[in-house]
């Protein structure tokens, strides 16, 4: 994976975390249908797994190797958060914590963005 592709993957992970966080904010204000809540999170998690798969297959050299490792770690974290959220209801108080976790992933990834 070259530097440009790594940056593109980085943007994709930030975008996914940001989308999931904004969805949780929306859920807190307007409770959605249970099926929609689970379904949307399921599709977001699928997308996250696709991103992670790409990163796991990828190789990089020099300074990019470190960036690739950081990206893999955060992409896996986003997938885990999304998978965990699928098992709870839209009213679950624990979602607030997940929202904070997703915000943390974004800020950490933005910090390493070249």
């Amino acid at each position, binding site marked *: 994976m070259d530097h440009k592709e790594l940056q*593109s993957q980085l*943007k*994709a992970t*930030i*975008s996914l975390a*940001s*989308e999931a*966080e*904004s*969805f949780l904010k*929306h859920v807190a204000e*307007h*409770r*959605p*249908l*249970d*099926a*929609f809540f*689970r*379904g*949307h999170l399921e*599709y*977001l998690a699928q*997308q996250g797994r696709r991103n992670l798969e790409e990163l796991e297959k990828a190789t990089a050299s020099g300074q990019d190797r470190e960036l690739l490792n950081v990206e893999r770690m955060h992409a896996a974290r986003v997938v885990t958060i999304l998978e965990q959220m699928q098992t709870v209801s839209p009213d679950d108080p624990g979602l607030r914590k997940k929202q904070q976790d997703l915000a943390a992933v974004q800020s950490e990834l933005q910090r390493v963005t070249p």
Partner: protein
Amino acid sequence: MKKLLGITLGIMTALGGFVDLGQIVFTTQAGALFGYQLLWAIVLGTLAIIVYMEMCGRVAVVTREPVFCIVRDRFPKPLGWATLIASNLLNLITCAAELGGLGIVIHLLTGWPEKLVMVGITGLLVGIVYLCKFEWIERIFGLSGLFMIVFAASAVMVHPNWSEVARGLVPVIHPAGRGGSALYAYFAVGIFSAMLMEYEVHFYSSGAIEEKWKVKDLSENFMVSSFGSLLGSLLTVALLVLGAMIFMPGKIFPELLSSAVMTGAYPFAEKSLVLALAGTFACIAGAAVETGLSGAYNLCQFFDFKWGKDKKAKEAPVYTAVWIGMFAVSLVVALSGIDPLQLVNVSIVFGMVIMPFTYYPILRVAGDKKIMGKHVNTKFDTVVGMIFLVLIVVAAAASFPLMVMTHSGQP
């Protein structure tokens, strides 16, 4: 009242073309990346489809021949064959993508398994098309598509800056936002072309004959094509605005149908989400029916087989077998697990490449006084048609290189 309901042909044609699975996600992505800066592409696409939809409706009424008879008569045989194969392949890919999209919408609404839903929905669509007369098909899908208006209401409720929106009517060379000029050009070409998808004019011209329009109905033809297209365009603008307002600030690139659907209910509560899902379902189902039937229309018109939705299956056996076959093959493709949005990406680019072969013969016949008599194109029609044809050719030529350069529109 009958005249008023006749407008549903235009609504179904335009909603199935403008607001299908691909366009819903694509336009939301364009808004998320470039804000309102691609509004002009929607306006341009709307004008082009109004001009050509009116033209092909007029040609169908005057000559009693829909688009594919013209393609057969006007092109050398090999080119006619190539256009037929390419158009029906496009219909098949699009129909498969739409069936996949319907599975997603019902899964989001009920939680039922997607693949099982796809089988059930395909059966339902085949049943509706088989049992209903043409005018009822267009009424069912045209009128239920109006649920999509919730997206327009949502776009107003998120309070966009309207003067900034208006600025989007002018194309820019160096766009602001997260993508470069190539990505901007890719989305511009994609939006313009998706509004001109071939199956819209195939379906519309066949529909004009199915509805037995006469020369005296030509004024209605203009009204039907304009109203349907303007409504489709309004909803497309709403999707762009929602993409800009909801996703752009968080640097989100929405890649899912569920993300785009959610924007329709963003400022409202649960019930509007149901409306947004219902509207999306109706438009995507309309597109699936439009592409399925277009496949049968194209083939029967090209080979001069009997065709017509209002004929009994025994009277038009090839037509009936082909449209049922279109749904069956599309279902198999959809069940194979290919991501419907990937299929749609392929169909948009593929559609762009073959687009000139659909629109060129329409322009030629509509401008031929020997064929059209007093209903021939005016000079103005011909000039405007030529300008749009040039744009269509440019878009067709640019589509593939832009797809490669931007990795199918990835920021």
